[in-house]
């Protein structure tokens, strides 16, 4: 008997040793020389090498107006160009459009297109391609999810080969940024069914990279476009590897098998602090364009009283969530705009953590612990509710647990329920069957948030599912999307920020940081408010450090 046990423990000991081995070993690898930022910068960027990016999901289609998932959008972003794009400071600049004029108080936009742009097959890009893309976007038989912004266009007129005039039914300022949509080649796609064309897996665009191959579920390879209108990108190949498992991706990083990937907070602050990662990789950190919140069902009588919602806000320690869940890699959210946005009202301060005040406010609203069981009650009803969130997002789950604990401190009994994403949306969010939810919004660069906050957007399946209604906000949201002047818009959105925050329709929790890591051999990366990807075509690897030279 003893023999058996000792043998067993021997085996397990061996396994444990394997488990610990990586940390011990990495220190050995450091001796081999590699790129380091302390080396003198090579003045002249060099062509060559490849970048390997890891993604958990494969793309689904490379037709830009059909691409709704982030993988497809990422590849489309390199293969196609829009008329406009956001620069490093998040201002709109011309891409395929050299310039534009806004006329008649915002009813008309005239785009002047670049004349030296060619499709990857050598044909020139013209205004006909813009018209074609627009017609496909509003075609009822095309399965595009992006038709919304383009339904507001009254007509689109090609004035000459390089001028397009867009008439709107009414002024619609977010419309300008919607022209960042990838423009498709008319001469190739004119007679194709977009959903079922070979170009959806073999795209021809005008962008900095040309499509080379797509091995489903394995990788997508792009090669640099020598005729790109802004000049040939320095990195020859872009390899998009599909690695569904995060742990695998991390092991690949440790063998330098992938060059660029987004980290999770734990990896960023703990697991990549080794000499190996310091030597071979550079980490970056900037606020992402989104926020997480705990939303209330405002039709629920418990939450209809603003004092109750404010009390719950006081009871939740946002800093604690950020340090516990995001390991400090984020900041407190103060409303529907991210802190980097010009729309964000800098005067809005987060509600401080103050459980005593929370209790006082609840008492004022009639919630007291009459029966002494530790849970507040009112009219014989105990203050209990369920916080729902979706499965597969550990950050949200842990956030919910911390909130549950803090609410318990003030006598509110919250339960946490985790539901699979598809079921969560269709059975609970769309049908309004929830009390509180923890969710997040990814925001567009334009501050227009009509669909999230306007009181008309509360039908099942629409985005104001919490049922927020404030007449002044409704009015301002409409004004904001009619106005083009940045200063006037800033005032409008600052006011919206203030009004929504003071209404506490939800508890704004945090804005997480984006945490990309890139192999140290890549130079020319300049972090900016837009992140690091905006100048990707200017990244390069000095000749001596290039890894992938056969192609």
């Amino acid at each position, binding site marked *: 008997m003893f023999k*058996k046990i000792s*043998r*067993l423990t021997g*085996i397990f000991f061996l396994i444990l040793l*394997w*488990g610990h*081995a*990586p940390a011990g*070993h990495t220190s050995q690898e450091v001796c081999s020389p590699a790129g380091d930022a302390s080396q003198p910068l090579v003045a002249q960027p060099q062509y060559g090498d*490849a970048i*390997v990016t890891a993604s958990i*999901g494969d793309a*689904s*289609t490379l037709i830009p107006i059909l691409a*709704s998932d982030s993988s497809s959008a990422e590849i489309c972003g390199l293969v196609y160009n829009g008329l406009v794009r956001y620069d490093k400071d998040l201002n709109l600049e011309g891409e395929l459009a050299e310039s534009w004029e806004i006329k008649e108080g915002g009813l008309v936009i005239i785009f002047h297109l670049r004349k030296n742009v060619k499709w990857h097959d050598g044909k020139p890009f013209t205004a006909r391609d813009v018209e074609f893309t627009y017609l496909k976007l509003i075609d*009822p038989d095309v*399965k*595009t*999810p*992006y*038709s*919304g*912004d383009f339904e507001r266009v009254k007509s689109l007129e090609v004035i000459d080969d390089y001028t397009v005039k867009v008439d709107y039914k009414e002024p619609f300022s977010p419309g300008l940024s919607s022209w960042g949509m990838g423009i498709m080649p008319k001469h190739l796609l004119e007679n194709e069914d977009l*959903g*079922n064309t070979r170009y*959806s*897996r073999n795209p021809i665009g005008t962008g900095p990279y040309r499509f080379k191959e797509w*091995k*489903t*579920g*394995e*990788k997508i390879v792009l090669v640099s476009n020598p005729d790109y209108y802004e000049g040939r990108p320095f990195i020859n190949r872009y*390899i998009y*590897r*599909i*690695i*569904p*498992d995060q*742990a*695998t991706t991390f*092991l*690949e990083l440790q*063998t330098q*098998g992938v060059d660029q990937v987004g980290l999770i907070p734990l990896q960023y602050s703990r697991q990549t602090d080794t000499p190996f990662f310091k030597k071979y990789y550079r980490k970056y950190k900037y606020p992402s364009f989104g926020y997480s919140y705990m939303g209330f069902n405002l039709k629920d009588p418990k939450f209809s009283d603003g004092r109750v919602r404010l009390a719950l806000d006081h009871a939740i320690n946002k800093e604690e969530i950020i340090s516990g869940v995001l390991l400090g890699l984020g900041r407190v959210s103060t409303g529907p705009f991210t802190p980097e946005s010009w729309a964000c009202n800098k005067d809005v301060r987060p509600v401080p953590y103050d459980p005593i005040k929370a209790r006082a406010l609840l008492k004022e609203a009639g919630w007291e612990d009459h029966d002494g069981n530790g849970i507040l009650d009112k009219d014989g009803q105990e203050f209990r509710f369920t916080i729902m969130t979706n499965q597969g997002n550990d950050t949200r789950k842990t956030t919910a647990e911390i909130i549950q604990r803090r609410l318990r401190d003030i006598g509110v009994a919250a339960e946490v329920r985790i539901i*699979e994403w*598809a*079921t969560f*949306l*269709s059975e609970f969010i769309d049908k309004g069957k929830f009390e509180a939810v923890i*969710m997040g*919004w*990814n925001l*567009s660069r334009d501050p227009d*948030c009509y*669909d999230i906050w306007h009181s008309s957007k509360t*039908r099942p*399946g*629409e*985005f104001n599912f919490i049922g927020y209604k404030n007449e002044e906000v409704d009015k301002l949201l409409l004004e904001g999307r009619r106005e083009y002047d940045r200063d006037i818009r800033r005032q409008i959105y600052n006011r919206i920020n203030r009004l929504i925050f003071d209404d506490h329709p939800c508890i704004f929790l945090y804005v997480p940081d984006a945490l990309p890591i890139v192999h140290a051999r890549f130079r020319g990366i300049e972090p900016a408010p837009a992140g690091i990807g905006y100048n990707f075509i200017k990244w390069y690897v000095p000749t001596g450090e290039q890894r992938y030279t056969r*192609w």
Partner: protein
Amino acid sequence: MVNYIVRRLMGMVPVLIGITLITFFVIHLSPGKPTRLQAEMSPKISLEAREKLDRLYGLDKPVHVQYWEWVKRLSAMDLGKSFVDERPVSEKIGERIPITIAINVLSLIMIFLVAVPIGITSAVREGSEYDRISTVFVFIGFAMPTFWLALLLMSLFGVNLGWLPVSGIKSIDFEDYNLVEKIFDLIRHLALPVFVSAFAGLAGISRYMRASMLEILNKDFVRTARAKGLPEKQVIYKHALRNALLPIVTIIGLSVPGLIGGSVIFESIYAIPGMGKLFYDSVMARDYPVIMGVLFIGAVLTLIGNLIADVMYAYADPRIRMSGR
């Protein structure tokens, strides 16, 4: 014999209809719509746009109408088109089936090469030290979570020793390799996934083999063989083994669905674009045509696998073939 096979084939049709009918309705009963997921949770995608998508995919029709349309298409050998990327389902399955079958066949071969000898030897030396060790070893394999073993091996051979690639099935410069390099590259990439998927299967087969061997060794004809003075080797490997392998044949039949179902776990971990991953992704995206396609092919193959096992049985054992007459 032909008669027997034909009878069995006829019997498969109603089973198949039953399987597809039930799976179709169960899948449509599960909450969540493909169009809702496709649009993720982006405020830029309006309700009207999503309703339009429902209409274009035919999701606004009643379920029984959708099923009827699916059957009609199927009768023309058309599995339909994926909701996610509009590609024909047969094409999506077709490009993923080879790698999954390759890995599973390799691991099946490995399982049989290792598990059958382990089973035989531990049955022959029942109760010995060797039997006990192999039992413990086999059960560790059985109990060990696949994903954990996979990650440990990746970490050991991929990161620490650097002998094998961490994940994927081909190197980045695979296309530029010559034939020898290509084969070597594939072997290096497949070594871990095949080992991991075989390791878990080892336990079951070796236990079946052991049990069936033990049973046979106690049979009268084995005693007769020994009594007439045959060498022990011949008794075991000629007389006993042949009979003991029969139940194992059934197990081959049962592993056919695994061949196309693949394994989500090791395919995800090793970043292998196989069937398991395709099926998992399509369930998560509620991509009904792909789900139905995979299940249908899986059902057909399972039935065929059972049929082959039964035919082999009938061939080996005349009593089965005759009883139906």
